[in-house]
């Protein structure tokens, strides 16, 4: 209750300032916060990254396992992306099984990775129909100051790019994590750009106060060909078609810089 009241007050302030053309933290409407990437942050993971996007901080870790392939793709490995919205990063999150909100985030982040065909799934086949590599991408936010999607996407993609595949020991029928068979085969670097709509205003890379005040959200995932490989609208508000068309162009324009940053830090 009290919490709701505080947010209403903040929301008013966010909107008042935006109307004057300002964001609370002084950024331009389409200006993003600074990105810091620390690759290989977790030694025990096969790949990992710590990403700071302003004060938002996220760790992504990649673990490799093995299992049987899905019946309809017997020659491909599998990939699963999960985010855990732990109360470590925000007082508003709760422990327990993943809710709709968490599932949506996981699936949006996953979608860009999957649809850009970033990971060459056929290279993850050990024995057709019998044994393939499983790639688990787990994202753990440490501080939620807004725009978990873009920060998580950077972390996940960077972690995949520094992932080393452990050797599968066919004799022992298990992974030998002491040795690797080379890097995880990747062939793209998808980048997510998320916009918040508040009243008639749209901002890029929303800070938490903006995110809480937003009417709607739009995420555009861009692949290395400058094409859109995934998108997702969220929130109870609506977008005009012209708005969407414009935001796609902006996302496509902004993505390459972030892609470069991810690739330089891999």
């Amino acid at each position, binding site marked *: 209750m009290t919490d709701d009241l505080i947010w209403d007050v903040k929301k008013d302030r966010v909107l008042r300032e935006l109307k004057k053309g300002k964001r609370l933290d002084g950024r331009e409407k389409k200006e993003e916060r600074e990105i810091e990437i620390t690759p290989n942050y977790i030694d025990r993971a096969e790949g990992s990254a710590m990403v700071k996007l302003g004060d938002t901080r996220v760790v992504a870790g990649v673990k490799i396992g093995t299992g049987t392939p899905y019946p309809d793709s017997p020659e491909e490995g599998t990939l699963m992306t999960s985010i855990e919205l732990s109360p470590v990063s925000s007082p508003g999150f709760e422990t327990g099984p993943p809710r*709709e909100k968490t*599932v949506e985030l996981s699936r949006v982040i996953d979608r860009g990775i999957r649809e850009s065909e970033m990971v060459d799934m056929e290279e993850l086949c050990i024995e057709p129909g019998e044994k393939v590599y499983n790639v688990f991408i787990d994202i753990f936010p440490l501080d939620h100051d807004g725009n978990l999607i873009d920060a998580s996407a950077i972390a996940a993609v960077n972690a995949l790019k520094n992932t080393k595949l452990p050797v599968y020991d066919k004799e022992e029928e298990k992974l030998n994590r002491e040795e690797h068979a080379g890097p995880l085969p990747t062939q793209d670097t998808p980048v997510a750009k998320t916009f918040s709509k508040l009243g008639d205003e749209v901002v890029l890379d929303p800070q938490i106060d903006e995110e809480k005040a937003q009417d709607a959200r739009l995420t555009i995932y861009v692949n290395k060909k400058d094409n859109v490989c995934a*998108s997702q609208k969220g929130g109870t508000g*609506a977008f005009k078609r012209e708005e969407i068309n414009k935001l796609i162009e902006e996302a496509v324009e902004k993505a390459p810089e972030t892609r470069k940053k991810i690739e330089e830090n891999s």
Partner: protein
Amino acid sequence: MAKKTKKLMKKGKRLDGRKPDEIRPIKIKAGYTKRADGSAYLEWGGNKVAASVHGPRTCYPQHERSPYKARIKYKYKLAPFSVDERTHPAPSRRDKEISKVSAEALEEVVFTQYFPETTIDIYTTILQAAAGTRVAALSAASVALADAGIPMKDLVTACAAGKIEGKVVLDLDQDEDQMGQADLPIAYIPHSDEITLMQMDGDLTTEEYKEALDLAVDGCMQVYEEQKNALKDKYKHLEEDNTGKNTEEDKK
């Protein structure tokens, strides 16, 4: 999007004979379920969907109640027998995501402020799935809401566009969905020309994206007509019934 290959277009037409900007046959019935406050049954291509609305009714658990407005809750579900491999009864991650974005897609049109402390519960089940289930369910749900007499600014209508063999087309069917290059489902408010749901998978240039979005809106307008017809049909029946019953009174 996936890998199977099969020729999907011949001489500018699709395998089922449709033109690129044509939707599959659609049939909607409002007021299907006696025990719901509002309901609809929809067949669209091979999809069969039932949607029921209960409410506005008191919201439980209590901590989810709002003193300002009704909550909109939406459940999307694949019946276990709706697809090739029997689905597990618990909601999948996909079900949960679709439920969330679908609830958000409807809220914009409902006058939720008229019903504080309540919930409007929308349940949709895909009895048979044939690509485009989320837009089918949402289109049915919107009719069920209207059938329940919930005051709304407009119907929300939904349709998907996609890309097959490098060409942007409307309303992918099962084969097109499996072998296509992109899928872009949207929900749309005709009255205000606004998008309330938009997801996308695949690979589209900026121009293709815009083209697909426009095409999806065209598809929505086709669905919109069917939604309105379904409601008119029900109203007509009621009118006839009334006429029948009230003959004597009418004469006065």
